[in-house]
């Protein structure tokens, strides 16, 4: 199952194939996820290829509606390797509402969708006062691996 937003699929395909006039590459790639720092949005429902899940919303601390910020600069892909996110470990202290984390979306700063995925073992129950953490690191050490295969 593809874990990439369908609109982004079309942008990538159109930018890498002769879909432009007279068979030139399309110009669709542009900056589909903006030019500002990206976010990891956490959802209490499952994201799909068409739409993000329901944002868990602002928590007691560490997470504001819209997503984690200050992810850090991930190690760039080379020769097709996956990109690991986040570079910097992210966490929040749960308010208890909602009680579960189900999926994430890697978004632009203005909520433009890109890659998404369910967390292993979802729904991950995070009781009020407990901390949910996604491991940061360089490359393969990061908790979320983004790849195109």
């Amino acid at each position, binding site marked *: 199952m*593809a874990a*990439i937003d369908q609109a982004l699929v079309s942008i990538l395909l159109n930018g890498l194939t002769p879909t432009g006039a007279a068979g030139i590459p399309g110009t669709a790639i542009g900056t589909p996820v903006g030019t500002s720092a990206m976010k990891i949005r956490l959802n209490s429902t499952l994201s799909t290829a068409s739409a993000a899940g329901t944002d868990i919303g602002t928590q007691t601390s560490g997470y504001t509606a819209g997503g984690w910020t200050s992810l850090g600069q991930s190690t760039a892909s080379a020769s097709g390797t996956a990109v690991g996110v986040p570079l910097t470990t992210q966490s929040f202290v749960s308010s208890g509402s909602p009680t579960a984390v189900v999926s*994430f979306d*890697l978004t632009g700063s203005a909520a433009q969708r890109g890659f998404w995925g369910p967390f*292993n073992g979802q729904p991950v129950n995070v009781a009020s006062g407990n901390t*949910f953490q996604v491991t940061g690191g360089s490359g393969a*050490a990061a*908790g*979320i691996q983004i790849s195109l295969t």
Partner: protein
Amino acid sequence: MTEGLAFEPPDEPEGWRVLGPDGHVVASGGQTVTEASADAG
């Protein structure tokens, strides 16, 4: 007691974890790998 080779499960990185207020690990999960397939033909 016979000493033998200790079996250690693969050292799989944790992608996420839930910590209690005192910092102990309540739950954890493996890496989340996001993949998109490109099919030719």
